[in-house]
């Protein structure tokens, strides 16, 4: 590529990236604006007036008022934030305990019917939630788990995507290393703990990030399986905030966004690696 085309391509890429990042900046600006300023700018949206809404890249008079209000004056917010945390933590912990060993077994042990089992896991991992909704509802009803956080956490733990992705990471660990350890008399559990887990850590981290983003963002599952509002996670509460509370809505949205965004910023390399692996070959 010539110098000029190179610069043009670069400019185009930066421009598109700016458009893509705009909604995030928008959410941040919204959260740092006062209710008054938001009403001023977005008034045409409430009133369906003739003129159009307006926006500035940065708040005209930045304030933490809405954020403080959400944090201090709305106990409901805390309950839901806490519910989101419990759901995500429960799913992640369960996956660590149950999915990591299963993935190790599928990657490194001579299990009979392994190929078929893997195909099954891939099949299940790609099923849209709407297909699983009714079947899972029936089990959860029989187990009397409906309308408890368990109804969201348990099926989340046994989603097969983490196993599939971890299995790919574990496969990359050289066989010779395990053979050598076996010759030295190490047991399988010890090999798993002292070789598998340490060498597989980047993969485990990538999978945990993906799982966190998924569970933090969950909407369909809690919507279907949780009736009581006091069990709702933030993701169900936010959409119910109307434009009349727009300041609070933006603030609550930012508080929900922060954990996901921080995680993304700090672990983006692991995440990219994880995604790259999910599309590769067996």
């Amino acid at each position, binding site marked *: 590529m010539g110098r000029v085309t190179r610069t043009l391509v670069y400019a185009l*890429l930066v421009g598109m*990236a700016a458009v893509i990042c705009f909604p*995030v900046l928008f959410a941040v600006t919204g959260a740092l604006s006062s209710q008054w300023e938001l009403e001023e700018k977005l008034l045409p949206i409430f009133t369906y007036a003739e003129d159009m809404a*307006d926006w500035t890249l940065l708040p005209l008079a930045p304030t933490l008022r809405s954020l403080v209000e959400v944090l201090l004056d709305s106990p409901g917010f805390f309950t839901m934030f806490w519910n989101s945390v419990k759901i995500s933590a429960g799913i992640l912990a369960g996956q660590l305990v149950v999915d990591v060993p299963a993935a190790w077994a599928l990657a490194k042990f001579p299990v009979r019917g392994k190929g078929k089992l893997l195909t*099954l896991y891939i099949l299940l991992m790609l099923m*849209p939630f709407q297909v699983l909704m*009714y079947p899972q509802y029936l089990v959860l009803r029989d187990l009397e788990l409906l309308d408890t956080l368990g109804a969201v956490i348990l099926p989340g733990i046994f989603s097969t995507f983490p196993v599939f992705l971890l299995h790919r990471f574990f496969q990359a660990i050289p066989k010779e290393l395990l053979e050598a350890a076996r010759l030295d008399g190490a047991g399988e559990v010890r090999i798993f703990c002292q070789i598998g887990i340490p060498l597989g850590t980047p993969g485990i981290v990538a999978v945990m990030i993906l799982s966190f983003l998924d569970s933090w963002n969950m909407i369909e599952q809690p919507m279907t399986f949780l009736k009581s509002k006091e069990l709702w996670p933030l993701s169900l509460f936010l959409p119910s905030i109307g434009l009349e509370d727009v300041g609070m809505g933006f603030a609550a949205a930012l508080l929900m966004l922060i954990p996901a965004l921080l*995680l993304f910023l700090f672990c983006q390399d692991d995440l990219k690696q994880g995604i790259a692996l999910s599309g*590769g070959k067996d």
Partner: protein
Amino acid sequence: MRKICLSPKARQASISWAFLLPNLIGVLCFTLLPMIRVLVSSLQSAVGGKWVGLRNYVNVWSNSAFQLALSNTVRFVVVCIPILLVLSLAIAVALHSLARTEYLTSAYLMPMAIPAASVVLVWKALFHENGLINALLTDLGLESVNWMNSGAAFWMLVISYLWKNLGYTMILWMAGLGAIPRNVYEAAQVDGATGWQTFRYVTAPNLRPTAYTITVLSLLNAFKVFREAWLVAGDYPHESMYLLQHLYNNWFRELDFDKISAASVMTSAVVFVLIGFLRRAWDQEV
């Protein structure tokens, strides 16, 4: 104490199952067995459990809401996937050929980390009749668009899907690009190939297996666009964006279990076929 003696093989097998079983039991209980149960119940009536053969399936097929939702879903997939694949490939190739692009790559990937619920207000402010996109359009001297209550709602869905999935798909392409050996490019350069020729005769053939995988993964991700649609427009959006997911949710809420079980089975059958393609792609890649 008596030592339990197992042959090494049996020992290995029992350890394997100890690692695998906790997960497998959960998967069987919460996913596979319930799906089989619904397959059986799709052939029965929900009330009374009498065998009704394929009647539930016929009812679903002849349901007008189903036909609308199905055609919208198919239209969405047919429009979205090609745009997504071409656009993300173009960006991936461009990024791949430039230096120091980590930050740009991250910028494209970021929407993936953004919870749909926390941008719902942004979406509403952008796509409202008097919202910011229309403000921009009128400033440019163009017609404003009624995003929520006209056929344009469909395009709002397309934009949401592209916004969310562009980065993810781009990373998949970049992994494919990174796997093409450098010396193939050097050979092309020695032969004096132009940029387009290099892409056409070196990059594209090498990316074919990746393309297949990405297509199928994107198809399956297309189902997740429901979140954005539902958050912005609720249970009954404009009919141009009424998807199968809306329909299944509404049937579920109305306790229409006859229909939902037949519909679930049909959808899983479609997924089965898609996975068949995906596996073939992976097998060819070796």
